[in-house]
């Protein structure tokens, strides 16, 4: 099992840096889910008129 080498932040292209920023990705994903699924749906429900 090879030990990975430590790379300087400057060597690594930004997409790789992004994919190695797990907590940032997790936070962004949770925020996206909350807005796209929960908040938008809630807005839909609140907008239903009385019949």
């Amino acid at each position, binding site marked *: *099992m090879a030990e*990975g*080498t*430590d*790379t*300087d*932040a400057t060597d*690594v292209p930004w*997409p*790789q840096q992004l*994919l*190695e920023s*797990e*907590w940032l*990705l*997790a936070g*962004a*994903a*949770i925020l*996206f*889910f909350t807005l*796209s*699924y*929960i908040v*938008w*749906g*809630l807005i*839909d*429900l609140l907008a*239903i008129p009385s019949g």
Partner: protein
Amino acid sequence: MLDLATYDYDDDGFRTCGVTGLRIHKSAEDMVKLFGVTSIVALAVGGAFALFVAMTRWEVIGLLPPGDFYQYLTIHAWYLLIFWMVFMEIAILYVGGPFVLGRRLPLKRVSGAGYGLMVLGAAIITWGTWTQELPNQAPLLTSYVPLKSPTSFYLGVDVFLLGAVVAAVPFLASIWQEKRETPNQALPLIAFGAFITSIVALEALVGGLITYVPTLLWRAGFLEHLDAAWYRQMYWIIGHGSQQINLLAMITIWYFLTHVLGGAEVASEKVSRTAFVLYLFFINLGAAHHLMSDPAVSTGWRMWNTSYAAYGAVIASMIHAFAIPAGLEVGRRRKNKGGGTFGWLWSAPWKDPGFSATILSIILFGFLGGTTGVMMGQMQLNMTWHNTLATPGHFHATVATGTTLAFMGLGYYVLRLVFGRDWIGGILATIQPFLYAGAMGLVCLMMMYLGLLFGVPRRHPSVMDIPGSAFDFAPSKPFFAVFGIAALLAILGGALFVVVAVGTLLFGSEYDGTLPEETPLPDGGASATDGPDSKAAHAFSMRGTFILTMVFFLTFVVLYALNWYLLSQVWTIGP
């Protein structure tokens, strides 16, 4: 705790696995054993109840009286869709994190507390369901408000969900520690997959708590009213989200077992990791699938969410569908087990139930489970699938073949490599995955056929005899017969796994810790040399994988077209 192993640990509590090379700490290993064995107990219970459910729906047998059907169905569903899955998934997190990273399991007592809460929650759910009386109704899996179930049931769910969240914390802590210690270092792909699994799980579990805590308050009388549409929208975050945990865990296992047992390598870190990130962002939006034929939520919300943001997550699935066989093809070609277009596949260790279960999982999940999920999730197509028997047909394909087979495969190797026991029963272990996969696959096909082409409803004990009506679904009887027989064989196949697993734990001889040598094929693939001139993965041929995925793609296209054709034959609905 559970010292059934034959392994010794060094003074720091570590040992090195002779097969995977992983450096494993006792703290993690203890909990993997605990959660893993518990999940298999849940499988056994849920599987036993499957017998009652299937033999009731096959009305020729009509095992249960209609009143009892819903109770048994509830137990069957909770023990298989939730307990078998989630206990195993905590074990998978501990493997994907601490095992793969060679770390201790931090906060071991928190893990124990999580386990205790999960068991307590499961016990309360079981007791509440089993002892229910009118005016309470069986909760099934969905406990749709405002149909009332026992108050204890909702409490049990809250305790279980909380326990699962607590049990996930030590995994997250292990990732946190790893990243803090080596900040510019990427996680191994499997640890990355496990991390994505954990976040998808947290979304689902927290969504479940947001759903079930108010529901408990409502049922207990503290909240006067709970909106049915809001409940549905929120419930399905845990309802479908829990199944997306299954998807992520299963895929992580596919990478793991194809590597350990078949010699797979990573075809492209970039492509596989990007696919995992697509899942991270989009997969839980699919909870919207259950609201396609609902009032209340808007068309825009439905289409955007059901499509996982314009099918971003479907792209991810299709990526893994290629990347995993490709990794196997490349890895085996490099080891001179290639031989032509498919030699790498035929030469693989098919007698090894860990391997065969993994490949069968991939095939059945892909062809039966994944395709149908995408189709029934399309807003309009959903009308022909919604609440028919085709719906459980779909999720038996994804969960009962796909995820369950993957977990069985992993289970075989937890027995060997964590418990240090070799499988009892000789050829039984070899045939078990094939028996189970074939039979359960047929069960799924029958359920889908019954639901789509006869409109047979799900959650119904008596479609051949509707009280007060001459109408029935009699034309579908032959398909129920095939379903019934296949179900019996599938349950037998599942029972066989439990028997082998428990028998191995109790009576298995010591496993000597090596995999059998495979014989290289005479004209195996491209030459592979160690050292700086060795070929990168992308330089190896992936033509076998490409053919397989194209077959899959064409199947998908044909099924898609057939489904839309079927819908087009329905009368006119909508503006």
